[in-house]
Every structure is written in C-alpha cells, then in structure tokens.
C-alpha cells in the first residue's frame, strides 16, 4: 500500500474523501487485505478512544464569561465617575455665570454692596484697637544714603520698599474721636438746599437712576412709618387731652 493510497484510505475512513475518489478506494479495499486490516484497526482505536471520559469542566465557560464581563466593567467605572464630576462642575459654573448675567439679579447683588450717599457721609464706627493710622509719608522710605541692614549670617536682605515700610514704620494707633450723636428722628440734611450762591452752573446729578438702593429704601420707609406713628400719637394725645378737659369741667 503506497502513501497516496494510505492517505486516501484515511480520508475515506474520515468521510472527507471526494466522491470521484471513493470508487478507487472501494476497489482498493476489495482487492487489498492490508487495506482492510488498516481500516479495522483505525475503527478499533477510535472506538476505544471514544470511550475515554471527558473530564468535568467545572464551569470554566461561566468563569471565563464572568472574568471577561468584569474586565469590561472596571475600566468604565472610573471614566463615568470622572465625567459625572466634570459635568456637575461645568453645570455649576454655567449656572453661576447665567445667574450673574441676569440684570435684576446683578443689580440686587450690587445693591447689597453699594454704599448710599448717607452711609458714605456717616462716620464708620470702628473699635479703638482696630483703628490703624497710616505712617507719616517721611517714614515710608528709607534714606538712600543709609546702608541696608545685613543679617548676622552674612547674607544680604533683599527687601522691597513695601517690606521696608512694614519694618521701619509700624502702624500708629490713635484714639477715636467721639462720634457726634445723631438722632434718628431728626435726620441730618445731607443735601443742602440750592441757593443762588451754591447753585452750580450745571445741574448736579445726585443719582443716575430713580431707583432707590436697598439701604435708602429701608430708611425712607422707616421715616414714613415714623411720621404716620407720630401723627396718630399726636391725634390720640389731643383726643385724651380733650376728654380730660371735659371731665374736669
């Protein structure tokens, strides 16, 4: 039996031989004893091998699928958390920007920090310890001829003028002058009435807008309420007076 015949026999046994070659192999099996024995041995070995048990796999497929799923999930967790964090931060920034860009809100915020003319004129009451008076101008800079102080270690001190001021002129504390007592019932006239002497050539713009600022509006309302209260009190006092006079009569 040649090698070519043997290979054809193997393919025939395996069922992979082409139809055209089948007839040739069948003729070979009929005439060759060795070919027949060969096929029998192949069948015997195969049947024996097929009785061999396959070992239990113990869920390797499931393990592989779980491992693959886990390897896909883990890399996605971190970017999602990052994206959410970045998106939240961006949304917050955009929200603040939009809020600030709205005109009424901006005005109301500005009103909170806006100093009205009345408050500007009023002296600021600051505790004595907190009052720091600026150093006199002659102490602000060192004379140019004076050599710079050298530290003991030999290294030169490279101080800027602002730092020098801090070293040479410590802040001088000054006692506060007594604040003039201002009665809330009699507000000080902040705007002097225009007289021919004081009247300027050009009209003075007191306020750019007719809109009252927060503090100004509060004061005006308080003053209006006080005047109403006074009037009512006065009326009640007069009524009581009249009743007492009637009773004494």
């Amino acid at each position, binding site marked *: 039996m040649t090698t070519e015949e043997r290979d054809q026999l193997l393919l025939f046994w395996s069922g992979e031989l082409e139809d055209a070659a089948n007839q040739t192999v069948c003729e070979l099996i009929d005439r060759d004893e060795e070919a027949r024995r060969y096929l029998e*041995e192949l069948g*015997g070995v195969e049947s024996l091998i097929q009785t061999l*048990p396959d070992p239990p*796999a113990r869920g*390797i497929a499931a393990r592989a699928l779980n491992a693959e799923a886990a390897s896909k999930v883990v890399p996605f967790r971190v970017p999602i958390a990052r994206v959410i964090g970045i998106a939240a931060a961006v949304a917050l920034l955009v929200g603040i920007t939009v809020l600030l860009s709205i005109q009424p809100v901006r005005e109301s915020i500005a009103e909170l920090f806006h100093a009205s003319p009345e408050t500007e004129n009023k002296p600021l009451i600051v505790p004595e310890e907190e009052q720091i008076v600026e150093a006199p101008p002659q102490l602000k800079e060192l004379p140019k001829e004076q050599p710079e102080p050298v530290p003991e270690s030999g290294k030169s001190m490279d101080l800027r003028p602002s730092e020098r001021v801090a070293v040479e002129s410590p802040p001088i504390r000054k006692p506060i002058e007594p604040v003039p007592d201002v009665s809330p019932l009699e507000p000080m006239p902040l705007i002097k009435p225009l007289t021919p002497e004081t009247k300027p050539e050009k009209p003075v713009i007191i306020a750019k807008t007719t809109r009252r600022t927060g503090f100004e509006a509060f004061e005006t309302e308080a003053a209006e309420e006080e005047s109403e209260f006074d009037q009512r009190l006065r009326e009640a006092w007069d009524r009581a007076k009249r009743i007492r006079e009637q009773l004494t009569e």
Partner: protein
Amino acid sequence: MGAVRDGELIEKFLETKDVSHVRVLFERYESQLLGYLIRLLQNRHDAEDALQEAFCKALRALPKYQESNQFKSWIYRIAHNEAMNILRTRGKVELQADPIESELSEHADDAAVELIQREDLEQLEKAIAELPDAERRVVVMRMKSGLAFKEIAVIEGCSINTVLGRMHNAKGRLSARLREVTS
C-alpha cells in the same frame, strides 16, 4: 426538539448581546476541549487556564466571526493556540506519571464502573500520553473530538498530508501498544 445550531446561537448573541447564548455554546464544547487540552498539556491546571483564556478570546473575537457552521474547529484552533503558548513558555512538556489517571480516580468514582474497564482506559490514556505531541494532538482532535483532517490541518497550521502522516504514525504506535497490553 433538536439543539440550537452553533451558528444560530452566535447570531442571537450578536443581535442581543446576551451572553447566555454564548454560555450555551461554550458549555457545549468545554468538556471536550478540556479533555483535549489535558491530553495535550498533561496538566489539568494549565489546561483549565488555557481553556478559560481561549473562551475569553473567543468571546472578544465573536463579533468578527465569519465561519458559519465551523465554530467547533474555530474554538479548537483558539484553544490549541493557547496550549501551544503554554508549551512554548514551559519550554518542554513536563510529563506526569498518570495525568489522566488522577483525573479518573478523582471523578470516576462511580461504583458501576468496572475495574477491568477502568484499567483498560488507564492503559489507553497512558498509550496516548506516550505519543509524540504532534501525533497526540491529531489523534485526540480526530478520534476524540471528531474534527475533520482538513480542520486539524488549519488548526495545526500545516498541510493535510502532514496531518494524515501523523495520524498514520499515531495509529501504528497505539495499535502496537494495545497489542502489548492485551497480550
């Protein structure tokens, strides 16, 4: 009702991305593949590692799978490549005394299994384990796993004539060994 074809399971998985279809597919072949890999690697742990890695690779490659109705040879090819990688890193095959015998003694504890039959199987496993690697692979793939010679040639990356030659040699060795045992 017949089992769902491999190709249908793959199509369902690709449509729905439901891994349960792949699980059915993999579980259909995992025992056969593990047996092949144990006989090839002579070590159960290496075989399990190779099979798990093969399944992972197959899952990743399934969206690109083109060979309809050739899944068996395709998964064998992947498993075979994994086993070859392990053999390459190992340098040489470390033959164990009775790799399959220990498997059988561990799992074939069924009282119905007759002692004689068990001894015969052990002898057969020994005979297969003593075959040269290339011949053993061909024998197991063809006679145990039922792959065609053409598929084995693709998996092995060699010509069909080489595969047929290996099969012929392996058959000769096995027949001689079995004759020795029976005599």
